[in-house]
């Protein structure tokens, strides 16, 4: 304020200008959005500048998932801009999705003028009320002089601690009003101070516990990815130092390379036999940046009964939520791993001999080959399709997104992720329709990379309109649909739980995906024979525009291995045992009530 009159004048700008300037000052290069009455002043400002590029979507849900894909693939905050009322309500799904998967997202929503709030005005909704439980925090800004500080705080809250989505709701009159801009270097609020440095005594305790382990396992999650590339690097170092086996949740794939010698594959409901058995039989479990989700633990009272557990998490509420922990370490994964690696180097020695019998046991489990499937020369097996896709793309800088369902699990099982931030999927919320807009968002962030949405025929139709956005921005995303004409995972559960009565899980009228691609201005490919698959994938990669690849796969293939509802890790249903009868009786009456 004491900088003199000239400075004061340059900081006296409209609310809409404040929004754009605050975005710029927070390092935002791209925002995903859709205009409407209550955000027109901001759109007018966007029109008059070039630093922040606005990416127009076709539906606000698409903007949210695109921003999530953008955030997950770059480590930056994803930003979306939508109007009031339906614009905001359409953003709810991606907000909750980002909340559950800890994705940093700033969502700016327009609101009716403050004088009309509460009057049931046109396109009015209680945005902060609706989004309160699906955001990390949200704000309704009624004073233009608080707008800049609020947006800066929004970026800080979204990106620090356990990342998550935030909403800044800005009434239209505040966008028009003139106020003072303040820079991002304003004092943070006292009540929000996430702890990032782990307690060193606890880390020492953990290292000692690990050093004495006979049957150890490291189980990692999305927190490692969120912590940044350095955390993945340290994780690899720790695994090399200790020689321990490692598995990961769906969200954590890529933190440790799938080609790494200690890799057991994914853990959980559709994880590998060796990963789940090792989780069950281990004596020391180290959970890093994961949260003992129900898809991971299976039957809780039979979850890893003989192990002592170390849990590293930045969110204290994740500790002891589902599973009791012996050594909780609250802090950022990267910082804690740094301490852990240092302490291990200084004090502990990997006792390869002590752990050798454990590795022999793991090798026996691995020999069960739990991801096996019966190959076919006549029809494309979905697993085969993912494997061929992997082979064709592994030497490129490839980003994979998915929708939700069987194809998602097959992608997780059969595509090998070598690096963090290359795998974008909706884990916690399980949002069908995530993958296509997420791929679009990834492609905007990485224009020259190969971005593939491994999709299902049902999921992809939920947000197919974003093909139009991809065409508009020359974003050559590849939509690789494992088309079995079913909602495959729904059908699989109906077979397991509901006497094979396939209630509404078959889509009788699917569009012609090739023509659909062409109608949008993209390129369509259909492939029906295993022998044609490699060439077709090559064509998909080489076409320099958005592609919809209709990969016709075996209609009735199911996703195994699987921990059926009501069962423990050591009661997996393996593919070679999954006869029709075994499937029909896998879940008893008591397990059927569970999801």
């Amino acid at each position: 304020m004491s900088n003199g009159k000239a400075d004061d004048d340059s900081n006296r700008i409209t609310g809409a200008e404040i929004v754009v300037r605050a975005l710029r000052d927070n390092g935002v290069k791209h925002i995903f959005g859709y205009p409407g009455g209550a955000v027109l002043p901001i759109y007018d400002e966007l029109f008059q500048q070039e630093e922040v590029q606005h990416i127009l979507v076709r539906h606000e849900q698409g903007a949210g998932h695109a921003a999530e894909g953008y955030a997950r693939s770059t480590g930056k905050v994803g930003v979306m801009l939508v109007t009031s009322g339906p614009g905001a309500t359409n953003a709810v799904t991606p907000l909750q999705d980002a909340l559950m998967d800890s994705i940093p997202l700033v969502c700016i929503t327009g609101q009716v003028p403050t004088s009309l709030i509460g009057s049931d005005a046109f396109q009015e909704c209680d945005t902060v009320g609706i989004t309160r439980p699906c955001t990390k925090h949200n704000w309704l800004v009624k004073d233009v002089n608080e707008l800049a500080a609020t947006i800066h705080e929004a970026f800080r809250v979204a990106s620090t601690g356990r990342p998550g989505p935030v909403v800044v709701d800005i009434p239209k009159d505040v966008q028009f009003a003139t106020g003072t801009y303040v820079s991002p270097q304003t004092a943070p609020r006292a009540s929000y101070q996430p702890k990032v440095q782990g307690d060193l005594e606890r880390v020492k305790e953990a290292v000692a516990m690990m050093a004495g382990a006979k049957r150890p396992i490291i189980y990692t999650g999305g927190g490692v990815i969120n912590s940044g590339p350095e955390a993945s690097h340290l994780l690899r170092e720790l695994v090399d130092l200790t020689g321990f086996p490692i598995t990961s949740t769906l969200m954590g794939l890529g933190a440790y390379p799938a080609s790494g010698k200690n890799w057991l594959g994914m853990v959980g409901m559709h994880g590998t036999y060796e990963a789940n058995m090792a989780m069950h039989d281990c004596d020391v479990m180290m959970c890093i940046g994961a949260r003992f989700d129900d898809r991971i633990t299976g039957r809780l009272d039979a979850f890893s009964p003989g192990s002592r557990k170390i849990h590293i998490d930045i969110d204290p509420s994740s500790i002891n939520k589902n599973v009791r922990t012996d050594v909780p370490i609250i802090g950022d994964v990267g910082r804690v791993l740094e301490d852990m690696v240092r302490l291990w180097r200084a004090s502990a020695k990997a006792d390869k001999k002590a752990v050798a019998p454990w590795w022999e046991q793991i090798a026996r489990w691995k020999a069960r080959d739990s991801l096996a499937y019966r190959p076919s020369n006549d029809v494309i097996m979905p697993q085969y399709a993912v494997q061929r896709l992997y082979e064709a793309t592994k030497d490129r800088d490839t980003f994979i997104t998915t929708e939700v369902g069987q194809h998602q699990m097959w992608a997780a099982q059969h595509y090998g992720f070598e690096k963090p931030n290359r795998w974008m999927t909706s884990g916690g919320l399980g949002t069908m329709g995530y993958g296509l807009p997420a791929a679009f968002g990834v492609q905007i962030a990485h224009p020259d990379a190969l971005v593939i949405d491994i999709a299902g025929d049902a999921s992809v139709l939920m947000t197919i309109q974003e093909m139009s956005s991809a065409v508009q921005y020359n974003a050559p995303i590849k939509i690789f649909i494992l088309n079995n004409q079913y909602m495959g995972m729904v059908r699989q559960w109906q077979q397991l739980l509901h006497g094979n009565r396939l209630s509404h899980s078959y889509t009788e009228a699917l569009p012609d995906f090739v023509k659909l691609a062409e109608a949008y201005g993209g390129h369509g490919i259909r492939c029906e024979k295993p022998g044609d698959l490699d060439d077709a994938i090559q064509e998909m990669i080489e076409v320099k525009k958005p592609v919809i690849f209709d990969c016709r796969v075996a209609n009735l293939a199911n996703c195994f291995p699987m921990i059926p509802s009501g069962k423990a890790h050591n009661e997996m249903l393996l593919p070679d045992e999954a006869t029709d009868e075994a499937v029909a009786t896998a879940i008893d009456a008591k397990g059927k009530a569970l999801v």
Partner: protein
Amino acid sequence: MNAQHLQPTGSAYFIATETEKPESHTLSVLVDNEPGVLARVIGLFSGRGYNIDSLTVSETEHEKHLSRITIATRATPQVLQQIRHQLERIVPVHRVVDLTVVARERGHDRPLERELALVKVSGTGDDRVEALRLADAFRASVIDANTEHFIFEITGRVSKIEQFIAIMKPLGLVEVCRTGVAAMNRGPEGM
């Protein structure tokens, strides 16, 4: 919650057999007094299925815009820990103290808890005399009266207020208004 009456078998939404007993605890939550903060706290309780037996809130430090929320809840020790951590996640929340746990650590049975109630009783004759006599015994004061009614103001522990209301019922109880529990711990230390 449909699954709860079944013998739980586990998995996805596994409902563990509850071995711990629920306890009544009183929490103090210090928050920035800003719009929506109470909704955040209440929404957390309803959204995650926690109980609220009583809730009071008021700004306690005007210059810092800090409000103190007192919540009486009932849950197992493990869930109580969750409640505390979940409350701490709310951005405008400064501090959460489980007063009951602190009281025990300091060798007390429970924190000091007081509630205020306004109790309207209407009647004539013997009932009226009896109401006034009992109010005196409970140290309730008369804050409004005419020939047909009294309004009593009573302060005390929840159990005392419950008892007073129960006694007034047959004597012509008309309506009751209660503030909910205000609580803090004994001793010189702050929360």
